[in-house]
């Protein structure tokens, strides 16, 4: 018999922790072997959610290694919101803190890129900054303007060639070429017309965008771009960013 709410809460806590660990179900459960069906469903469904959110990470380490990683992560950090598109934000840091990162030091950043891509897909809709609006400002006002990212825009810097790694690990590529791991790459993620786009930024452009998103003025950001790369072409970069919808209003 279950005398009160407290006992019921305790039963659910025990049931839940047995689902996530390998532990025995609470004694009230009638058929212990049938408990495995629930344990399997919970763990396999969450592992599938992670695999769907991190397909490149999965491809790099392989299905069985990813499954083991997912199960460790599920046990350590189960979802705390009943919204599966939000589950997995902690996986890049979990990879960085674990043994995989010793062998594949670029893996946490690849996972970060994948998570940022998913965030972009589900981010709020909002108007894009109109280039004509910026062009009508007098020079002093333009210098002082602050360009903000659109809600679906993400900037992912890395010491590793994450754009290249991501690109060569797409499903349609069967023969993965060797990647020069000495290249640092910064990826800009944008979403326009229902399509999430990954763009590899040149170093000057990367510095410019990073400065914009750090709240620096347009003038200071342009300077940051030129400081990074004296050949930074601000006009060309702006054309691309307005087409991609990098900035919000």
């Amino acid at each position, binding site marked *: 018999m279950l005398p009160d709410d407290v006992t019921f809460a305790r039963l659910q806590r025990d049931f839940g922790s047995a689902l996530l660990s390998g532990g025995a179900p609470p004694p009230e459960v009638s058929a212990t072997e*049938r*408990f495995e069906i629930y344990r399997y469903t*919970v763990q396999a469904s969450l592992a599938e959610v992670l695999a769907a959110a991190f397909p490149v990470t999965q491809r790099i380490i392989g299905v069985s290694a990813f499954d083991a990683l997912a199960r460790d992560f599920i046990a350590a950090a189960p979802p705390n919101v*009943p919204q*599966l598109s939000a589950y997995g934000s902690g996986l890049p840091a979990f990879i960085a803190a674990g043994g995989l990162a010793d062998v594949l030091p670029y893996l946490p950043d690849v996972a970060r890129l994948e998570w940022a891509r998913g965030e972009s897909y589900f981010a709020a809709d909002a108007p894009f900054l109109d280039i004509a609006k910026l062009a009508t400002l007098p020079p002093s006002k333009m210098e002082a303007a602050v360009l903000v990212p659109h809600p679906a825009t993400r900037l992912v810097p890395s010491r590793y060639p994450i754009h290249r790694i991501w690109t060569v690990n797409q499903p349609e590529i069967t023969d993965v070429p060797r990647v020069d791991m000495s290249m640092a790459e910064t990826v800009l993620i944008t979403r326009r017309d229902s399509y999430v786009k990954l763009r590899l930024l040149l170093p000057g452009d990367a510095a410019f965008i990073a400065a914009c998103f750090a709240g620096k003025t347009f003038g200071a950001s342009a300077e940051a771009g030129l400081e990074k790369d004296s050949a930074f072409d601000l006009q060309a970069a702006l054309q691309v960013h307005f087409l991609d919808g990098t900035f919000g209003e």
Partner: protein
Amino acid sequence: MSALTGVGLGLRTPHMVPLAAPDAPSVPWLEIHSENFLCDGGPRLALLHAIAERTPISCHGVGLSLGSAEGLDKAHIARLKVLFARVKPALISEHLSWSVTGGVYLNDLLPFPYTQTTLDVFARNVSDAQDAFGRQMLVENPSLYLTFAGSTLSEPDFLGALVERTGCGLLLDINNVHVSAANTGCDATGYLRAIPAEAVGEIHLAGHSTGADGVLIDTHNTAVSAPVWTLYAEALRRTGPRPTLIEWDRDIPALDVLMREAATAQRILDTSIAERARVA
């Protein structure tokens, strides 16, 4: 009782583009899993908006955890209210189950003992949810793989008392009745006779599979089975015509396969309406 009629389909992401297209096949209504659309924006939500403009939507929740002893998550209720304001669902439903404990979401529809205590908890949560949403909810019978030593109420009695206390409706999942009856050794026909038929606002149909020791598993990965079609006809005799949904969640087939399943259900629904007319 409900704004929906006929046989609807569970809306799954592979079918969203075809169903949002101008030449989309006509479906009387569609049901979404609410928690798949709690995002802030983006293509998936845009497609849902396009579909909802011309097709009535039912919002079927899988994460509210009405059976949680710790009560409902107010933040989750707020998220659902945003979704409901967006798609203006014809009806909303959840499950006779729980999935949250200690703030952890377990992503499954978990069983619990049926007792006066758990009835108190469940009824309080249903009332809180209905108050927050300002409308009636339907509560769906789960598929069970095990029971609890402490249970003192049958599931139909639990549901009957819940309806009486909260004014909620029922979502009768025929496949779950079949699966639970087989797994817990109760009688499916007796179950249909014991639930309050007038409270049923919607019926679910889905496929299941058979596990190693003969256990039936509610996999939703295949066509509706013959015994479930038979039980469906039996249920309609008890409830009268009810909006009916085809659910297919894994190994999702082409839309026309789902449409054929829906056509089968529609024939059974039409037959039950004709039978009633004859009796009357």
